[in-house]
């Protein structure tokens, strides 16, 4: 497994996908935070604006996870991956670990960049910067964890569906359009839908930030966490079962 993890990290480092992820994360954490600090009235600046980009980062890592698996099929590298590791479930586990941890790191980087903007920008507006306390830190930790989970969900979706464009477009349409509509009109059902469940793990920031990832709370955080893990496990197992009978031609 160690060699597989090494191979997956090397795959990440040796293409521009990770560079693209870094740039995208930097932009979406920097731009909204800078705009909010620059333009909203000073009496509304309370530190909450420093997590403004978190929702966007979550969508970016979702796409990043999907690309992690679908790129293998798109470029045909899956042949060499399975030749080196014919046990396909092991490849899936390695990808979940590597991409999940990278997604979490991306969120950590985004939050750090936002704090840095706060350190520099808030005093320029005459507002003092306060180092995040225990509650805020716990909230950030949950956002980091959810980013990891969402990335894993993306990997599992990509492994299951394989077609890159269909998977990316389908996942984004579902997360940004279909699921919010279901949550709005059928909240009882919406509570259990995947992106709403991911949002309920963090609930204080991501859930209310853009109104997309989890607007409806019906689960406690531990419940939401367990359902999130169950979603990833179910899609991952389904992907492995499908991949076992799938021909690599």
């Amino acid at each position: 497994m160690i060699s597989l993890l090494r191979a997956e990290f090397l795959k990440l480092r040796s293409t521009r996908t990770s560079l693209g992820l870094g740039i995208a994360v930097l932009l979406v954490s920097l731009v909204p935070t800078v705009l909010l600090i620059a333009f909203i009235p000073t009496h509304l600046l309370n530190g909450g604006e420093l997590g403004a980009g978190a929702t966007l980062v979550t969508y970016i890592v979702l796409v990043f996870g999907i690309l992690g698996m679908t790129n293998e099929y798109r470029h045909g590298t899956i042949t060499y991956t399975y030749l080196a590791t014919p046990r396909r479930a092991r490849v899936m586990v390695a990808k979940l670990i590597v991409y999940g941890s990278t997604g979490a790191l991306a969120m950590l980087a985004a939050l750090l960049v936002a704090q840095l903007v706060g350190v520099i920008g808030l005093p320029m507006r005459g507002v003092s910067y306060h180092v995040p306390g225990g509650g805020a830190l716990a909230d950030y930790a949950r956002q980091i964890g959810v980013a990891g989970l969402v990335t894993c969900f993306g990997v599992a979706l990509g492994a299951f569906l394989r077609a890159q464009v269909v998977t990316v477009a389908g996942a984004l349409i579902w997360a940004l359009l279909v699921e919010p509509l279901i949550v709005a009109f059928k909240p009882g059902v919406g509570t259990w839908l995947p992106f709403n469940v991911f949002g309920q793990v963090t609930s204080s920031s991501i859930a209310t930030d853009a109104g997309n990832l989890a607007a409806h709370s019906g689960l406690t955080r531990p419940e939401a966490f367990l359902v999130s893990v169950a979603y990833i496990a179910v899609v991952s197992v389904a992907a492995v079962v499908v991949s076992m009978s799938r021909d690599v031609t």
Partner: protein
Amino acid sequence: MAVIEAEHLSKRFGKKVLAVDDVTFSIRAGAVTGFLGPNGAGKTTTLRMILDLVKPSAGSVRILGQRYRDIPRPATRVGALLDSSGFHPGRSGRNALRVVAAGAGLPDTRVEEALTMVELEGAARRAVKGYSTGMKQRLALACALLGDPEVLLLDEPANGLDPEGIRWLRTFLRARAAEGRTILISSHVLAEVEQTVDDVLIISKGKLLAQGAIGELTRTAQPVVRARSPQAEKLEALLTARGAAVNRLDTALAIRGPASAEVGEVAQANGVVLHELFTEVPSLEDLFLEIAGTRREL
């Protein structure tokens, strides 16, 4: 000892396409075996079934006595060249190999050795998207060699190579064969492997038509007597009357059945002038065409 054993192997894609139809064969250790057949014959599908990339619809295949997926660290026992396009275009040649080596649990030193073997050291830092077809083919070959395997499966390795590349490949394969490795090499260009292989498997339309040592198979193939005469039409009639199968194009004749001595005697006895008369040793291509029943004489 058989290194690869396939028993009643079949693969159906959908309801209509039967790519491989009840194929049974074995590949002996230390031999270079040519897996020959036209495009679409089922060669690639068979190789992918050997490597557990394609699931057989029926039958089974074992390599080194077990299923590929059951071989511990398979890249150190079996190397495969299947598709030169299986590399991320943005990755350098060296990194493409490093990724495969890492997945197979091999050290980076093997990457450099493999690059040297295929003479790609100079281009190792370039992105694969800038490689020519021949360079990609060499990179794929380097991938197959990473684990220094005892068995090599090569699917159309000369595809995209220029004449110099094909000569390089032939020398390369001879050197690997001389080391005692078992090599299964598929090709639809028969002349390309004729000088390299010991045994052949001949497949067409998914069915295995023949297998065995190339020497034995060519010995059993019927030789062709070639003659050239200004009275070719008369000679054709004389030989046909004696039961020979004759194909004529202008003054040239291809004769199956009688030996060249008999053809010469018939010609002399009937006052037919001969400008040329010789027996052609059947080539691998002749053998294939004869077995596949697609021969077009002359």
